[in-house]
């Protein structure tokens, strides 16, 4: 599998994703600098976390306008898998690949902690190593992770089974108490219609190493490697 990680000036989880991909794939992804014209042909594009361009206006808004993201949109529309994590998710909504918007956390504070997620759609290249209803624990770290969309959009996401992860209690119920940021319907991650674009606020790459306190993030990368190796 050949993967590219998009590196913007303010990306700061780019190396973390690089390490996680290397661990699963056995080889390094391409670290693609945002200003470089040609995005190589790859099997997977990752838009990592961070503060892409400072995020001063709205998270992800400035990055969404960059040429490299326009190219990412084009690839996604051709079916290339695109994974946006945290700031990457914010960028994917701002550029229109995913519906809705990530607003400021309801608690008005940055929040960094492990959360429990229920896997809602294990039928994608990103989630094939998980099973439906599985509960995994990985961290969030964001100031703007409060997913918002109008009811019509939310209903569509539900009807089309495009919610990939929801915040849940350790036992698995999706409850308000388990929602760290006020996200509509406890949404932590969503898919596009083609199911080849996943945006998620939690960071699977941060818990893919037992020494750091957990490995629930690892199956995402293992699964991608398996799925895309057979696809290629």
């Amino acid at each position: 599998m050949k993967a590219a990680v998009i590196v913007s000036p303010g990306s700061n989880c780019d190396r973390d994703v690089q390490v996680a991909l290397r661990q699963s794939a056995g080889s390094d992804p391409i670290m693609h600098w945002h200003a470089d014209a040609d995005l190589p042909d790859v099997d997977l594009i990752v838009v990592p976390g961070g503060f892409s361009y400072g995020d001063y206006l709205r998270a992800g808004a400035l990055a969404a306008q960059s040429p490299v993201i326009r190219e990412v949109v084009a690839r996604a529309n051709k079916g290339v898998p695109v994974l946006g994590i945290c700031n990457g998710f914010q960028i994917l909504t701002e550029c229109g690949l995913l519906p809705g918007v990530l607003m400021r956390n309801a608690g008005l504070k940055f929040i960094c902690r492990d959360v429990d997620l229920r896997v809602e759609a294990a039928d994608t290249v990103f989630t094939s190593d998980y099973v439906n209803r599985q509960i995994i624990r990985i961290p969030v770290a964001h100031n703007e992770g409060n997913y918002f969309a109008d009811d019509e959009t939310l209903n569509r996401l539900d009807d089309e089974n495009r919610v990939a992860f929801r915040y849940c209690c350790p036992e698995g119920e999706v409850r308000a108490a388990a929602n760290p940021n006020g996200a509509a319907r406890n949404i932590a991650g969503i898919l596009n219609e083609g199911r080849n674009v996943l945006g998620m606020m939690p960071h699977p790459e941060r818990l893919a190493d037992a020494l750091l306190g957990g490995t629930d993030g690892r199956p995402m990368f293992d699964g991608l490697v398996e799925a895309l190796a057979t696809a290629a």
Partner: protein
Amino acid sequence: MKARIHITLKNGVLDPQGKATEHALGGLGFGGINDARQGKYIELDLAENDPVKARDTVEAMCQKLLANTVIENYEIDLDE
């Protein structure tokens, strides 16, 4: 010419910042606040001097970048 842009949350979109401000003001003993809403305010100093063209440009800026129209409204004032 100067453009003053107000970006506010659409009706029906929850405004936790406004709520927090209202709450904090209440705590400081300022009663009688029916509602508080918080938005952004952007001032642009433009080289353009034609108000019609300026408005068109700023309109385009808001659409493309300054506001996220899924949740936000914007209002443009020009002053020479």
